[in-house]
């Protein structure tokens, strides 16, 4: 089933961390397996935030040796950053297997990301000036507390509560997905893509990498491909409705935009609230009411509807 949520404040910053947590917690019944956030803080010129994970649930089955494995992988990442003369402004191990780096002096972020991911077991969850992508097993409260998201100030964010259907319960199959290697682009999706393997092979032939077997990852890769070819976010969303088969509603966030697209059957839900300074959307109204308890006007977007909002 899965639940998706998103919000964007126009021209101001707010506590999007706690707002997203309230929305996602209200959607827990749609997906209790894992929860993910893509939240956008204040971008700083020349400064990049890299979130990565160095182990999965399956690695823990190795027993005590996993601790050494994790330490070795982190050392390798640090070594690569050194080789590329990257200035590491800060490095924080939020959990043993999830790290947050603040970096500067990077010539080519895409090439650096590719080089880091050559390390076995290392996956970059997000790379960008403003984007911070966090996902882990458990509900929104668990993940939010684990990753200290309750005070996160930003302009916009998207999130996801996952009920695993087509792939495993693990972090690599959890949403959101970063649109590798396109900085600051993230995707959450509710639905099922029926031409996944055809589209995946097409994207792989064009040189894109897939880290999981989750059909939602395709939307991130597809969006990254379009953006890299100069297609606007709105055009990419419209194109996807024609090219991607299945039932889906998905949200895409960039450094300063939030977009949504609904398939031709309008089979997956989304409720929208729009005001002059805030746009909020979720699979169910109960999530919007978690941050806006007063009486408000909301509506369901129709089939093939595409919308994009600016922060």
């Amino acid at each position: 089933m899965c639940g998706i949520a998103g919000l964007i404040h126009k021209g101001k910053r707010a506590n999007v961390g706690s707002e997203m947590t309230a929305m996602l917690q209200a959607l827990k019944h749609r997906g209790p397996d894992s929860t993910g956030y893509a939240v956008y803080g204040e971008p700083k010129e020349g400064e990049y935030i890299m979130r990565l994970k160095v182990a999965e649930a399956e690695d823990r089955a190795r027993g005590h040796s996993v601790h050494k494995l994790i330490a070795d992988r982190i050392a390798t990442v640090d070594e690569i950053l050194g080789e590329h003369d990257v200035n590491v402004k800060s490095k924080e191990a939020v959990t043993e297997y999830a790290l947050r780096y603040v970096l500067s002096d990077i010539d080519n972020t895409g090439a650096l990301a590719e080089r880091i991911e050559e390390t076995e077991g290392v996956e970059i969850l997000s790379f960008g000036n403003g984007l911070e992508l966090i996902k882990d097993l458990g509900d929104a409260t668990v993940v939010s507390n684990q990753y200290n998201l309750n005070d996160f100030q930003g302009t916009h964010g998207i999130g996801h509560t996952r009920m695993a259907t087509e792939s495993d319960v693990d972090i690599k199959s959890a949403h959101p997905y970063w649109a590798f290697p396109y900085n600051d682009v993230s995707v959450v999706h509710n639905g099922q893509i029926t031409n996944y393997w055809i589209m995946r092979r097409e994207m792989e032939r064009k040189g894109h990498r897939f880290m999981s077997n989750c059909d939602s990852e395709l939307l991130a890769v597809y969006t990254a491909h379009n953006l890299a070819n100069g297609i606007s976010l709105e055009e990419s969303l419209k194109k996807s409705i024609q090219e991607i088969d299945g039932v889906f509603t998905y949200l895409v966030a960039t450094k300063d935009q939030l977009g949504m697209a609904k398939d031709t059957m309008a089979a997956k839900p989304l409720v929208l609230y729009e005001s002059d300074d805030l746009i909020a959307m979720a699979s169910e109204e109960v999530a919007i009411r978690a941050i806006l308890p007063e009486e408000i006007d909301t509506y369901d977007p129709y089939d093939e509807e595409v919308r994009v909002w600016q922060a």
Partner: protein
Amino acid sequence: MASVTDEELKQMTQEERVTALGMRTEQLTGKSLYIEFDPGAEERFTYPWAPDVDFNKRTELDTDDLTSTEVNSRIRELMREGYGTIVLKNPRGKHSLGVGILSRLNLIIDGSTGYFGVGLIDGPNVRITGRVGWSCGENMMSGTVVIEKNAGSTFGAAIRGGDLVCRGSVGSRTGIDMKGGTILVGGDTGALSGFMMQRGRMVVCGNAGKNLGDSMYDGTIYVGGEIQSLGVDAVEAELTELDRKWLTRKLTQYGLMPDKGVDHFTKIVAGKQLWNYDNLEPTEKKLIL
């Protein structure tokens, strides 16, 4: 049946063979079979266990800290105490509020509900001041439901009776599989509205999305605005004087009568070209044919 020999069966027509073998013989007439109730027969309309409520006895229930199950249980308790008018406060998008009420009641929901609101009801008059989520009024049997704002998709799915009214716009697949009753929409409706509709009437004062009335068996859809496209086997029919009178009465009743009257409404019915019924089950066909 035992007295029929193989030789005799060979001489019979298909219909005679079916009868002789004791199989179903009823023929579909192509006409809706509305059951005429006797208004005097009160026992037809009330359940023996239905509480005797007084509409003048009114109470409010704050749902803020209650789960949907607790709210629905509390409504039943209040009805047993004789309350005939119940106001639910602060629903805030909760799912399944007011479901399965099978007797008379004035239920006022002051705010918005989530999925499956007031489904499976048989009798109450409901007014919702906010918006409703997916599948509002699903499978309702009788009563009236009036929603002041918008509604989500599958509005009035499989409704069998009563009036389900949304003053705003509704999502996709409105009245999917409806088997009776009336759905009134003040605004627009989305794609595949009236999909596999079997009986009843749907009125949309605004525009309708693509594939309106797709694969409808029977029933009638009236649209006041533009129709993006008709579905398979949905065809336009002439708006008769009877249609005009019925539309005028229903729309006036709920304050949805457009300024320009009802003459501009388009009437959509089933073309019945997909009616390929016979009276044999596949297993029966193997025996007979």
